[in-house]
């Protein structure tokens, strides 16, 4: 493959320029990576909190347990529902005593109502779905009241959405920077090889043949920049978690591959854009 050889030759011919462009790409992707990691960690933390999203439907006193159990089975069949716990009056009392240990003597038997504690499946814990399920529970004849911490769930989701939007916006901004940088380095490569390109044209090389090494060069620079950024991000997160001593998560294998692919795509787009613009001028 002469195109691959030519693009590797470009690295050998201008090692400093190549290293500089890979480093610059790596740093822009590093910025994206760092913010991405913040988002991944926020999401992870939110998911843990989300697992506690629970709808509690309080059942009217004197409702036969059999009827509640029957209803619990029905509710468990809802598509959004992961599990339903039936909490009797005795269990409610016990839980209250456990959770509020120092006031355990205050609780007298049988004054807390029984309830159905409904846990939702992951992906169905957004405010709208929680509302919907709560409304269905409210419609049950023996249910007196439904509680699910509406304010809390809305805030949680707002935070999650802000983090997501900020990540996308920053990601796009840094991706644009990386594309521009790659474009600029490819422009320099095109100009540095202008003599060779003009000779190629004279002897009958096709446009595709002339373009290919530059596209490969951009692609490889993008991948190398992405890999370097991944390494830098990993290093940064280890240093940070070492100093601040808190538990952090790194990108999983799939996200790391997405990062590399993003680097490669940026390299390809940047070089295609630059070659398309500057080749006709050579």
């Amino acid at each position, binding site marked *: 493959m002469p195109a691959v050889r030519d693009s590797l030759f470009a690295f050998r011919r201008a090692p400093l320029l190549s290293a500089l462009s890979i480093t610059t790409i790596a740093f822009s992707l590093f910025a994206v990576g760092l913010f991405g990691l913040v988002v991944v960690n926020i999401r992870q933390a939110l998911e843990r909190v989300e697992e506690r999203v629970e709808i509690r439907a309080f059942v009217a006193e004197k409702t036969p347990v059999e009827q509640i159990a029957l209803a619990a089975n029905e509710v468990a069949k809802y598509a959004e529902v992961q599990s339903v716990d039936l909490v009797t009056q005795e269990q409610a009392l016990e839980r209250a005593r456990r959770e509020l240990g120092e006031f355990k003597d205050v609780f007298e038997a049988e004054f807390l109502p029984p309830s159905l504690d409904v846990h939702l499946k992951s992906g169905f814990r957004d405010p709208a779905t929680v509302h919907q399920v709560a409304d269905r529970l409210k419609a049950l004849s023996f249910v007196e009241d439904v509680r699910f911490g509406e304010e809390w769930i809305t805030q949680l989701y707002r935070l999650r959405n802000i983090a997501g939007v900020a990540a996308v916006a920053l990601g796009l901004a840094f991706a644009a920077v990386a594309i521009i940088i790659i474009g600029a380095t490819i422009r320099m490569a095109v100009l540095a090889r202008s003599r060779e390109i*003009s000779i190629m044209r004279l*002897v009958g090389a096709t446009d595709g043949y002339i373009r290919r090494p530059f596209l490969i060069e951009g692609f490889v620079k993008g991948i190398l920049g992405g890999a370097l950024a991944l390494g830098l991000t990993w290093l940064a997160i280890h240093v940070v978690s070492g100093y601040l001593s808190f538990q952090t998560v790194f990108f999983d294998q799939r996200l790391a591959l997405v990062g590399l692919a993003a680097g490669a795509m940026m390299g390809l787009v940047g070089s295609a854009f630059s070659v398309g613009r500057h080749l006709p001028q050579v």
Partner: protein
Amino acid sequence: MIRFTKVTKDYPRLGAALNDVSFSVAKGEFVFLTGPSGAGKSTILKLIYMEERPTDGEVRVAGLSSVTIRPRDIPKLRRKLGIVFQDFRLLEDRTAEANVAFALEVTGTPRSAIGGKVSRALTQVGLASKATSYPRELSGGEQQRVAIARALVNDPVLLIADEPTGNLDDRATRGVFQLLRDINASGTAVLMATHNLDLIRRSDYRSIELNRGKIVFDSAEAARAAIERFAE
């Protein structure tokens, strides 16, 4: 081989470079293109290898027309041509043989065929012994021979030479010119733009003289007119 029909070429800022030029070159012919600087010689050559398109009129080269050719077909045309310049246009970081091989590599010639073709072309120009030399290690005449070998390696039907002896001393000029004659003798048409009137006088090849974008003299036309006058 080449046919110019009422060709005009205007450059946006420089104005008219060629004005209503018509001529043709037959297969296997050797033609000098001469005239002062700025007369339009290089423009004619650029129109032939379709680096430029005419503003008006038509240029036909090796069966392809400037009016109908698609940009992606231009490389196909250039593979039928060999082009040589005054400044050689060699790649300084490659040896003589690598420079010649370059023309084959970029046109997709199989690797196995390249070695033989390169050494044949270098032998043809008398530089087989300097195959591994870099351009900076060669004299001007030798560098031009490498450029000619690169132009020949694809077996062109037409060799275009733009002032090929412009940077050479007399001895090297004679050598390069003799080489072009030999190439022509083997059947390749040669169109050579030159300032060197001595070369034109010493040979009996057809010459076309340009001035200010117009053909002011064509030895073939002059000979035809003389014959017609004689016949009358």
